[in-house]
């Protein structure tokens, strides 16, 4: 990215964040991020990743737009019943002209993955696929008024090590947006190589509005250090 021109003007304030600079912007520009889920968590995350100048976003969502919840920050009620993938691509294209928006396909070749699926089995399967592909990824999971975000650089403890499966409460909209934005922050830190601790994973829980972060640890017997 040059020092002048439209991109320099757009991302001037992001560039000023300590550690980002021109190199960080270039890393974001080169990133190809697979985003699983474009609902209440994924909608805000997609919007921020597009506005932050991530080069390509692959939207991966097989559901239709439903009414309510301020449309996951993306969809107006007139789009109800339309595939989220198309509706999201349209809005994200209007939000930033610097990001390519594509539907996810098997030949997409992403460089990182963000998992914001509402259903836990879908999230776990997407996380496992990213791990096996050796991709850094971030997984958001909701639970009532809170939830958590797990950051998994390549080789770090996996989602099975970080989050016990279990019943969770339906996610409230404001909490969903908070988790989606938190997941987007983590993904940007990973992509721009700003996460402290080389290759270390971490989990941030959001409980009653308070974020609390701790390192993740490999569960005894888990073979997640093996990438095929």
């Amino acid at each position, binding site marked *: 990215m040059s020092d002048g021109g*439209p991109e320099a*003007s*757009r*991302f*001037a*304030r*992001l*560039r*000023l*964040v*300590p*550690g*980002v600079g021109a190199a960080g912007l270039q890393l974001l520009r080169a990133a190809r991020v697979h985003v699983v889920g474009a609902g*209440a968590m994924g909608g*805000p*995350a997609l*919007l*921020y*990743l597009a*506005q*932050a*100048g991530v080069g390509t976003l692959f939207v991966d969502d097989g559901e239709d737009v439903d009414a309510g*919840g*301020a*449309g996951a*920050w993306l*969809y*107006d*009620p007139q789009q109800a019943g339309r595939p989220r993938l198309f509706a999201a691509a349209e809005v994200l294209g*209007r*939000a*930033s*002209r610097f990001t390519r928006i594509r539907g996810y396909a098997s030949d997409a070749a992403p460089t990182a993955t963000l998992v914001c699926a509402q259903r836990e089995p879908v999230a776990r399967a997407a996380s496992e696929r990213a791990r096996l592909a050796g991709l850094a990824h971030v997984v958001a999971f909701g639970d009532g*008024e809170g939830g958590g975000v797990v950051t998994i650089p390549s080789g770090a403890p996996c989602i099975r090590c970080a989050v016990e499966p279990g019943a969770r409460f339906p996610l*409230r*909209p*404001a*909490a*969903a*947006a*908070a988790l*989606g*934005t*938190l997941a*987007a*922050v983590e993904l*940007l*830190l990973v992509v721009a190589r*700003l*996460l*402290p601790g080389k290759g270390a994973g*971490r989990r*941030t829980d959001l409980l*009653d*509005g*308070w*974020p*609390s*972060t701790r390192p993740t640890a490999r569960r005894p017997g888990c073979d997640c250090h093996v990438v095929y």
Partner: protein
Amino acid sequence: MITLRGRTVLVVGAGGLGGPALLALASAGVGRVVLAESGAVQDSDLAGQPLFLEAELGEPRGAAAARRLAALAPGLEVEVVAAFGEETAAGLVRAADLVVDGSNHFPTMFHANDAALAAGKPLLHGGLLHFTLHLLTVLPGATGCLRCLFEGPPSPGPEPGLLGPLAGLGGALLGAEAVRLLEGRPGAYAGRLLVHEARSGRSRAVPLKPRPGCPACGPVQGARAAGAGALA
């Protein structure tokens, strides 16, 4: 019992913090917002302010925000006011159930603080500097306020860097906090400042009691028994 649909929230600013707070309030089903915003949409706003689209560059931010909110949440009533300052703040705050301050302009933050305390209305304050997010809920008569923390606005400096989604997190958390208070639940940041540093992941709580001699808090301490800070 008044539902969220019957509540009015005054939001100061539609930018990095105010924009996501407005979207969170709309998502939660709040009935009415009054948006105090006077700027125009600038190119750098589109790197981290979710209410604005490419086609709206140069437009008044208030009008652009209201249009987007109307499209996403048609049930939400949005009123835009351009002026929020020493002379207008008191009336706007009195007419709302609570105030969300998403401004990045120091004098405006202190106008919001002083007007909320004078009117006995809860104030939700957010601030952001690089990787650090600050959130505080001020309950008049019960907690310290912005002037207990900083006696007055600091001197303006150069525009700091902004990580868009971190501001989004702050705005979404402010919106969730507003919903908590509007539903009659305790505020998560009432009397304790949340300081969250995104890169290290460290969060800490800074207790904030009313400071003796605070020019904004002092006059309302006696009003606590009368229920100031509680929602009707």
